[in-house]
């Protein structure tokens, strides 16, 4: 049997600039003895040479510019493990300028730690990051209130931030699992319980990590396999793709959306594999069919009794990262799994300033960088999709402006316009 390896959990650490995210990760690595030999000493040398106190953040912020300015520019992914499982810790930048890097980091996470500086309190990115996590579908959140040493480990300060921030998160529908008072620099409540905050009885950060749930398998969902490519390297004509949800086996009758073509799966193709005859969510495989249909990259394979929706109008909750505003008079490319289609903005409603949750307006003409809005896109041809609530993988898309991915969107509600019947 193949060796089973511990499950890995991806966790992102987010929060306002300078509140101590990198320090927390550095401290976690140090206190769990996860650093390679010589790393601590090398960082100690760098700090000494530049006349600084030891910075745990330097264990992660590897770029010269990051260390000089004391801020994280781009996400770093670091591994460590507890007795329970392996972790990938994603240290996201907190500076507003690098929001796209924060989103990049958070998009691959299953759980998040939201970090707030006890002394500075809740800041713009503390809120914005909470909002983005919610949009990305990350519901497992623990809040940590850092730099408690700067407020004399005061329970009152902790309680005030706790109350205010939870009220904000509740508006988004996020209920954090724990709220932990912390001093990342001194190691209080990171890997060991603090002696200075005896009023706190909850878990340490390390213990809280082990409380997150691993991703559940998508096998039970409806079959969704977007066609990635068609191969004809030998006599087989292979339809290649990754199963995003559900499972498929030889003999199944399948449907290609939006074209509506139907066929029977003749074989499941793999190379040098012990698996046979069937495949399930997460696997990249190939299939051959009983007849030679015209199939294209982007077609979505499903079973005939549970089709995705198809439409040339799409509404989504969009966050915008591009320097150039999202505007109605321009043409964009929308990418949803392997589908790509030209599109224009049909209407923009409910632009939200993610830092204050204030609605900028009910009907807007443009969406600026770092804003979130509900946008209707008119597509040049039909695409197939699901509501993200049903199948997250086929319920989200990105918008490409010129050469750059500039926004991401989630399809949340049923859109009434023009649904497609086969």
């Amino acid at each position, binding site marked *: 049997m193949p060796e089973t390896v511990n499950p890995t959990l991806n966790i992102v650490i987010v929060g306002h600039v300078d509140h101590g995210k990198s320090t927390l990760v550095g401290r976690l690595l140090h206190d769990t003895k996860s650093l390679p030999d010589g790393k601590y000493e090398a960082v100690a040398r760098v700090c000494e040479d530049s006349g600084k106190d030891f910075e745990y953040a330097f264990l992660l912020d590897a770029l010269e510019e990051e260390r000089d300015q004391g801020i994280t520019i781009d996400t*770093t992914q670091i591994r460590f493990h507890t007795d329970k499982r392996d972790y990938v810790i994603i240290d996201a930048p907190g500076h507003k300028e690098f929001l796209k890097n924060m989103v990049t980091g958070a998009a691959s996470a299953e759980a998040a730690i939201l970090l707030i500086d006890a002394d500075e309190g809740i800041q713009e990115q503390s809120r914005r990051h909470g909002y983005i996590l919610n949009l990305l579908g990350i519901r497992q959140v623990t809040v940590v209130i850092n730099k408690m040493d700067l407020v004399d480990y005061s329970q009152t300060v902790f309680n005030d931030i706790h109350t205010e921030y939870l009220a904000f998160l509740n508006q988004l529908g996020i209920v954090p699992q724990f709220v932990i008072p912390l001093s990342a620099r001194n190691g209080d409540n990171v890997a060991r319980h603090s002696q200075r905050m005896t009023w706190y009885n909850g878990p340490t950060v390390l213990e809280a990590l082990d409380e997150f749930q691993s991703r559940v398998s998508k096998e039970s969902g409806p079959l969704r396999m977007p066609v990635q490519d068609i191969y004809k390297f030998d006599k087989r004509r292979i339809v290649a793709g990754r199963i995003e949800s559900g499972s498929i086996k030889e003999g199944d009758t399948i449907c290609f959306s939006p074209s509506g073509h139907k066929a029977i799966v003749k074989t499941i193709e793999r190379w040098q594999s012990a698996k046979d005859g069937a495949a399930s969510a997460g696997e990249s495989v190939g299939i051959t069919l009983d007849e030679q249909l015209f199939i294209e990259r982007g077609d979505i394979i499903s079973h005939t009794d549970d089709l995705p929706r198809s439409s040339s109008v799409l509404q989504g909750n969009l966050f915008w990262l591009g320097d150039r505003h999202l505007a109605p008079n321009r043409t964009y490319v929308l990418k949803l799994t392997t589908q790509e289609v030209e599109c224009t903005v049909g209407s923009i409603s409910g632009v939200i300033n993610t830092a204050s949750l204030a609605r900028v307006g009910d009907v807007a003409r443009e969406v600026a960088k770092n804003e979130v809005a509900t946008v209707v896109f008119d597509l040049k041809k039909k695409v197939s999709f699901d509501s993200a609530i049903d199948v997250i993988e086929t319920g989200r898309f990105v918008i490409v402006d010129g050469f750059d991915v500039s926004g991401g969107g989630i399809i949340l509600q049923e859109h009434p316009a023009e649904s497609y019947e086969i």
Partner: protein
Amino acid sequence: MRTTYQEPRLIDEPYTRHLVKDMQLDHLDTLESQSVYILREAYRKFKRLAMLWSIGKDSTVLLWLARKAFLGHCPIPLVHIDTSLKIPEMIAFRDRVAKEWDLRLVVGQNTEALAAGMGPDKGRIVCCNSLKTEALQQLMAEKDYTGLILGIRRDEEGTRAKERYFSPRDKNFEWNYKDQPPELWDQFKTDFDKDTHIRIHPLLHWTEIDVWKYIKRESIPIVGLYFARNGERYRSLGCQPCTGRVKSNATTVDEIIEELQHSTISERSVRAQDQEDTYAMQKLRAKGYM
């Protein structure tokens, strides 16, 4: 009893492992599937695509994954940058595997610099820039490649930990690490301006130990230099003058896995160019080094 390392068969035989009853993907399956997905995206999106094969364990695993992705074939040409300083056993392995697997091999070399006497004595970073980065630059220009697949991993060192799966390089080969494209939900940067090329990193999410576990599971042939002889082995392979050996008695893949499970020494600690100064890798990589 300690068995000595045997060169594995190269011809692929059908697998005799038990059929897997449990449909759940395990850790290695998940890593493999993600890499296959990326390789297929690259192949679909780049007309002029090549894959760098350094003969080391990572790029050999990458080659294996390409054959998984393309169901037994490798439709992507393999580029080997020959600094002329490689260990002879690596070249022998390269030629043997290329023949048996019917690979398209393209060898690049900065012959001009070599003729002018380039070597690590001119400074390690200078040498790496010239014999690796510039050699690659020349070959890419000659062949007009716009996509280059490389087997780097995040856990190797700090700047690689910040990489994207699809990472643009400008016409001077430079990596703008201060302004990288967002990457979410496996939607990659596949649209780009002319004069730019994209580096594709399908192994980014693997660790050193994952690579060895996968080599074991799949019985992937690996150059013998990784296995201990006389109490030493190579942990990372590069040019002869700049790659050191580590103390080790690991003569099998199992023993290497066992050794790594207890090691706290980083993989690249034996690569001399990394140790030149604190930001050596950042400087090399900003200029287009692998």
